[in-house]
């Protein structure tokens, strides 16, 4: 009798965004195969789909918004299904872009190309106040999902410069591929999104990048790999192999010698389906802020492997929860904190990478520092 030996399969859903890079590279550069797993990647179009298909079991794992992993564990906004995030998929990669006309108004009020978030924010606050006293309708900002880093970074920035994100502006969800068109049609004055979608608006001459959100929150988190907790429990060895593959893929992605190849790989229609040169700029940590302007270097704009970029910091999960409470997406409950902390799983990350001799952080939490000098203390998340 013939024995056919097949590698265990893992099906992963992803959204066509720059930060699906480690997942794509784990497959395309053979890191997954070397760990003995067969990756099957499925391109998805909306966060709600990806979450549902993860819950129902179409996917074993998924490219998830960090806050979405936490929200699903809590059952906020949708079904309650325990999700675990055993590895992060890099840091940063987001920016805030405004329309040509809003940029003109902000520049009149003191905003400067490449200015820091405080300068830009104060200019925006002046525009908002002027509009209010002139009786003009509030500005509309787009973001990609209610439980997303983009949403919370945008709100954090607005609130820190004195703009009430619920009263002074309107926030709406628009899927990334429609942001530039909505801005062109005059339905959006600004948006916060990951690359390449800021650069797409810049290239089209529709938008100006006001600030990368990494200037608001340096080394800020973004996507994670999410799995059902039950799947992670039942598939420990496969889980660990996948984490190792993603670790190797992330290191490969960050190597400058691989940036051009990575940009071309992601540009393919089956992955991100965007111009390779736009992707390359973000991968190489530089962005063109306005149409025709030379790209400027942005330190740590998109970090794939260094700075413990794949470590699932529990303080990230706690900060997301603090935002859900701050912006009244969830009613705080005693039991929430342990569920939130238990969604991010540095223990699995450590277990998987132990054999590789990778330098690991001593702690699972760290203080998070913001542009307005505020420090988030993970020991007192709701204070």
């Amino acid at each position, binding site marked *: 009798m013939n024995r056919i030996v097949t590698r265990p399969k893992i099906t992963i859903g992803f959204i066509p965004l720059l930060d699906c890079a480690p997942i794509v590279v784990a497959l395309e550069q053979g890191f997954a195969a070397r760990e003995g797993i067969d990756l099957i990647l499925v391109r998805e*179009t909306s966060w*709600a789909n990806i979450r549902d298909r993860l819950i*129902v*079991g179409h996917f074993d794992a998924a490219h998830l918004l960090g806050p979405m992993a936490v929200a699903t564990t809590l059952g906020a906004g949708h079904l309650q*299904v325990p999700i675990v995030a055993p590895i992060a998929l890099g840091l940063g990669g987001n920016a805030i872009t405004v329309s040509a006309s809003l940029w003109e108004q902000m520049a009149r009020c003191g905003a400067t190309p490449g200015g820091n978030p405080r300068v830009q924010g104060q200019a925006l606050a002046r525009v908002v106040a002027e509009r209010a006293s002139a009786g003009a309708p509030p500005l509309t900002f787009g973001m990609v999902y209610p439980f997303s880093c983009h949403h919370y970074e945008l709100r954090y920035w607005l609130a820190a410069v004195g703009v009430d994100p619920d009263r002074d502006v309107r926030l*709406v969800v628009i*899927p990334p591929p429609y942001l530039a068109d909505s801005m062109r049609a005059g339905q959006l004055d600004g948006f916060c999104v990951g690359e390449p979608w800021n650069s797409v608006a810049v290239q089209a001459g529709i938008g100006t990048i006001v600030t990368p959100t990494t200037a608001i929150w340096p080394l800020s988190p973004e996507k994670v790999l999410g799995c059902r907790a039950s799947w992670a429990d039942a598939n420990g060895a496969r889980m660990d192999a996948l984490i190792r593959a993603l670790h190797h893929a992330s290191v490969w992605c960050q190597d400058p010698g691989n940036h051009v190849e990575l940009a071309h790989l992601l540009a393919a229609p089956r992955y991100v389906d965007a111009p390779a040169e736009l992707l390359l700029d973000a991968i190489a940590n530089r962005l063109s802020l306005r149409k025709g302007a030379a790209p400027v270097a942005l330190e740590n704009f998109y970090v794939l492997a260094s700075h413990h970029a794949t470590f699932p910091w529990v303080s990230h999960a706690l900060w997301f929860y603090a935002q859900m409470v701050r912006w009244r997406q969830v*009613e705080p409950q005693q039991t929430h904190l342990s569920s939130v902390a238990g969604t991010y799983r540095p223990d699995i990350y450590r277990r998987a990478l132990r054999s590789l001799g990778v330098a690991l952080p001593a702690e699972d939490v760290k203080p998070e520092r913001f542009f307005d000098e505020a420090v988030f203390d993970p020991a007192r998340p709701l204070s």
Partner: protein
Amino acid sequence: MGEPSLRILLVDQNAARAAILEEGLREAGLNDITVVREMHGLLRRIVDLDPDVIFIDLENPNRDVLEQMFQVSRSVRRPIAMFVDQADTETIRAAVESGVGAYVVDGLQKARVKTILDTAVSHFNAFNRLRDELERANQQLEERKIIERAKGLLMKERGLSEEEAYGLLRTAAMNDNRRVADVARSIVSLVRLLK
């Protein structure tokens, strides 16, 4: 006369695809269908039409826009049905039973579309009821706690008995036409500010 048909809102920006879906649903015996091609003003349309199910193509990224609407405005929350090309019976069942929504296989297997949608709607309604009850219970618990804390503060600061403290809260609430829990919440947060 058949039983009342499900009221369906079909959201699709692609006119040709919407027409095919609509025809398929009609052939499956579902006649109460409204097609919406614009996301703009969709919230208003949902309120006006009060559909039993919202149909959206799985390939449509605007599903995330719908999610936000459901979050902001609970009253418009509706079960979502989606088309997929290769869902087996097992995944459809899992999707429907988990409350995720309904997946309808591409090609609209006429005999089954209606059953799947009916089940999805009833599951969704059951989940929604449960969630509302849970939320109400949590809110009541939280309100009781905050009233206790406000009473405690009043007793300490003003040297009142428990009964007097509660009486004071209730009078303040009646005078301002507010709920006792809201008055209690203001007291607790004010005291926190003054400390």
